[in-house]
C-alpha cells in the first residue's frame, strides 16, 4: 500500500512538473483592456450586448489554448473597467488601461457617444479602435481625424432607408396601404433616424398621417400609441430606445393597435423582448437581425447561452463577437501584438467571422451589415441587409394573439 502511495505521489509530482514546465513555456499573456458601462444609463444594454460577447470570446480562446504568436501560444487576460456611462470616466479608464495597466489592446467602449469620446485618446495613445455600437453618418470625417478608428455596425441612414424601402416593396406588392404613422424618442439617434425616414417616406410617396416625438425617459406612452392608432395608419414605425420599445408594444397590445407593418427600434432584437411578449411579438420588425440559419451563428448563440447564461441579442452581440474574432485573426496573422501593424492589417484584409466575411473600405467602414429584422416564431431573423446573405421573406403582422 505504502509503495503504491509513493508511486502515486511520484507520478503526481512528475505530472505537476510537466504541467509546470508547460506553463513556463507558454510564457505569453496578451493583456486586453475594456472600459464600458456597468452602471448608469447604458448599463442595461451593455450587459446584454457588450460584456457577454467579449467575455465569451476570451473564455473560448483561452480554452482553446490562446492565440498563436511567433513566440508561441499566448492566453488572453481581460481587464475590465466600469465607465459609469460617463464620457469623463471613459477617457480616464482608457488612459489608465494604456498607461498604468499597459495593456496590449483596448476594446472600443459601448454606445455612440462614449465611442466618440474615447476616439481622441485611442488616437493619441496609438491604439487601434475597432468600434461596434457606434452608429453614425460621419465616418469619412471621423476616419480622417482618427485614422485607426474602424466601424462595423452600419450607418444611421442605412437603418432608416432600408426600413422605408422594405415598406415600399410591401406596398408595391399590394400587402400594405400607403398611410404611415411614425414616432421617435427625442434624443440621440431617434431624431436623426426620424429625419432620414421622413425624407425617404416622402420620396417613396407615402402619406405620413402621424408624426410625433416624445421626450427621453417618458414612462407613459399611451397617448403616443393612441395618437398613432387614431390616425388609422397601415404601417407604424417607432424610432425608440429599449425602455420605450417595450412600453410602446405593451400599449399597442392593450389598445389592440392592429397594423400589418409594426416596427420598434433599439431593444426589439433583445431576447427579453420575445421573453416579455411571446407569440404576440410574432412578425414585429426592428433594427438589425441575423442569419439565424447560419451554423456559425447557431454555434455562437448556443455557446453564449451555455457559458454566459443568457442568449445573445439578434443585432450587435454577434457583431461585438465578430470584432473580437477580427482582432484575434489579425494578431495571429501578424504573429505579435504590434498595434500599428494591426491597424494596417484591418485596412487590408478580409476576416472570416460569425457574421460572414468582414472587410473595411477607404473610410474604415464595414459595408456589409443587417439593417432590418423580424421576430419569426421566437427568432429575430434578418429581412433586409446591405451585402449580407440569408435574408428571409418578410411577413405581415396579424393581430396580437
Amino acid at each position: 500500500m505504502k509503495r503504491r502511495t509513493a508511486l502515486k505521489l511520484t507520478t503526481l509530482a512528475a505530472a505537476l512538473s510537466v504541467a509546470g514546465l508547460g506553463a513556463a513555456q507558454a510564457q505569453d499573456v496578451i493583456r486586453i483592456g475594456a472600459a464600458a458601462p456597468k452602471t448608469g444609463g447604458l448599463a442595461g444594454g451593455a450587459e446584454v450586448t457588450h460584456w457577454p460577447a467579449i467575455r465569451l470570446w476570451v473564455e473560448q480562446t483561452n480554452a482553446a489554448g490562446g492565440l498563436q504568436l511567433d513566440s508561441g501560444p499566448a492566453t488572453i487576460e481581460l481587464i475590465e473597467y466600469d465607465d459609469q456611462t460617463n464620457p469623463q470616466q471613459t477617457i480616464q479608464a482608457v488612459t489608465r488601461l494604456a498607461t498604468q495597466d499597459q495593456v496590449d489592446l483596448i476594446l472600443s467602449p459601448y454606445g455612440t457617444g462614449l465611442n466618440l469620446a474615447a476616439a481622441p485618446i485611442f488616437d493619441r495613445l496609438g491604439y487601434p479602435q475597432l468600434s461596434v455600437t457606434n452608429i453614425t453618418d460621419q465616418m469619412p470625417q471621423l476616419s480622417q481625424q482618427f485614422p485607426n478608428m474602424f466601424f462595423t455596425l452600419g450607418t444611421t441612414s442605412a437603418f432608416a432607408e432600408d426600413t422605408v424601402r422594405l415598406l415600399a416593396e410591401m406596398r408595391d406588392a399590394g400587402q400594405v396601404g400607403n398611410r404611415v404613422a411614425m414616432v421617435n424618442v427625442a434624443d440621440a439617434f431617434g431624431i436623426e433616424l426620424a429625419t432620414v425616414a421622413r425624407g425617404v417616406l416622402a420620396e417613396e410617396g407615402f402619406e405620413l398621417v402621424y408624426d410625433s416625438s416624445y421626450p427621453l425617459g417618458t414612462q407613459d406612452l399611451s397617448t403616443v400609441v393612441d395618437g398613432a392608432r387614431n390616425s388609422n395608419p397601415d404601417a407604424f414605425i417607432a424610432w425608440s430606445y429599449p425602455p420605450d420599445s417595450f412600453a410602446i408594444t405593451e400599449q399597442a397590445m392593450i389598445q389592440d393597435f392592429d397594423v400589418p407593418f409594426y416596427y420598434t427600434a433599439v431593444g426589439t432584437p433583445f431576447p427579453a423582448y420575445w421573453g416579455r411578449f411571446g407569440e404576440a411579438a410574432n412578425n414585429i420588425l426592428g433594427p438589425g437581425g441575423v442569419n439565424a440559419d447560419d451554423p456559425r451563428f447557431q454555434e455562437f448563440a448556443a455557446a453564449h447561452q451555455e457559458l454566459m447564461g443568457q442568449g445573445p441579442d439578434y443585432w450587435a452581440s454577434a457583431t461585438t463577437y465578430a470584432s473580437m474574432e477580427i482582432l484575434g485573426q489579425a494578431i495571429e496573422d501578424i504573429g505579435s501584438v504590434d498595434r500599428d501593424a494591426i491597424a494596417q492589417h484591418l485596412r487590408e484584409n478580409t476576416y472570416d467571422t460569425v457574421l460572414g466575411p468582414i472587410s473595411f473600405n477607404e473610410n474604415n467602414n464595414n459595408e456589409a451589415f443587417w439593417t432590418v429584422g423580424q421576430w419569426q416564431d421566437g427568432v429575430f431573423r434578418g429581412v433586409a441587409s446591405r451585402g449580407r446573405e440569408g435574408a428571409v421573406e418578410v411577413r405581415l403582422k396579424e393581430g396580437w394573439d
Partner: protein
Amino acid sequence: MSATDYRNLAISAGLVGLVALMPFYASGYVMTLAVTVAMFTVLATSWALFSGPTHYISLATAAFYGLGAYITGLGIDHLPYWTLPLIAGVAGAIVAALVGVATLRLSGVYFVIFTLGLAELIRQLVTFAQVQAGRQGFYVLTSISETMIYWQLVALAAVVWLVGWLIWRSRLGFALRIIGNDETVARHSGINTAQAKVLLFMVPGAAAAIVGAIMAPRYVYIEPSMAFGPILSFQVVIMALLGGTRRLWGPIAGVIPFTLLWEVISGNMPNQTYLLLGVAFLLIVYVLPGGFVGLYEKALHRWREGRAA
C-alpha cells in the same frame, strides 16, 4: 494692499506657474487626471464663491456647463475657437442673471430645487430645438490637444481665484458675508441683498459655461444626456464641501483628494464604485463636517491658544 497681500499673490502666482508647467514633466495618465482636477477646481471654486458666503446651495452647475458645451458644438464650424469660451462666459452670466432675478428672492430649499430643475429645463429646450432642426448631437472635431485644454483650465482657475480674492476684499464681499450671517440684518443695514446675490451668482454661471465650452473638444460628440448630466452638479457640491467653503483655497483641497479617491476606487474596484464612494462620503461627513478648511482652522486655533497659554 498690505505686504501680506503681495506675498500671498506672489505665492499664488508661483504655484499657478508651477502647475502650468506640468505637461512638460507629467505622464499621459497624470495629465488626464490633471485635466479632471483642473476642471473641478474651476467649477468648485466658483461655486463656493457664491454658495460659501450666501449658504445658497446651487445645483445649476450642469445647466451652465451644458450651455457652454453646446455653444462650442454649435459654433465650432462657424467661428474661430477662441471666441467660443468668451461667448459661453457672457451667455452663462446672462442666464445666471435671469435665473438670479427670478429665484434669488426665494431662499433655502426653493432655490435648490429650482437650480436642479434648471439643468433639466435647458436640456429639454435644447432637445426641442434639435427635434425641430432634425439633428442629433454635434460633432466637435478639432486639433485641440489635452495639454491646451489643461492650460485653458489653469488660466481660468487663476482668473476665478483673482476674482474671488477681489470680491472678498470689496464692498460686495462684505455685503455678502453679512447676508450669509443674517439676511434681515443685511437688508436693514441698507444692503440691496437681491442685487448683491444676483451679481455674485453670475460668477459661477459664467465660469461653468466657459468650462463647458473648453471641455467640448475633449468629448468630440455633444449630446444632451452627456452635456447636462446632473451628477456633475452633485460632484461639485460634494467636492467643495469636502474642502470647505470659508477660504478661497478650500474647494481645491477637496477636489484633489476626491478625484484621486474616485480614480483609485474606479481603478481597483471597478464593480463597486458607487458603493465604496457612498461609504467614503459617509466617513467624510462624519469625520470632517467642516471640510479640510474646518480642520485647518481648528488646528490653527489650538496652536494659537497653545502659544498664548
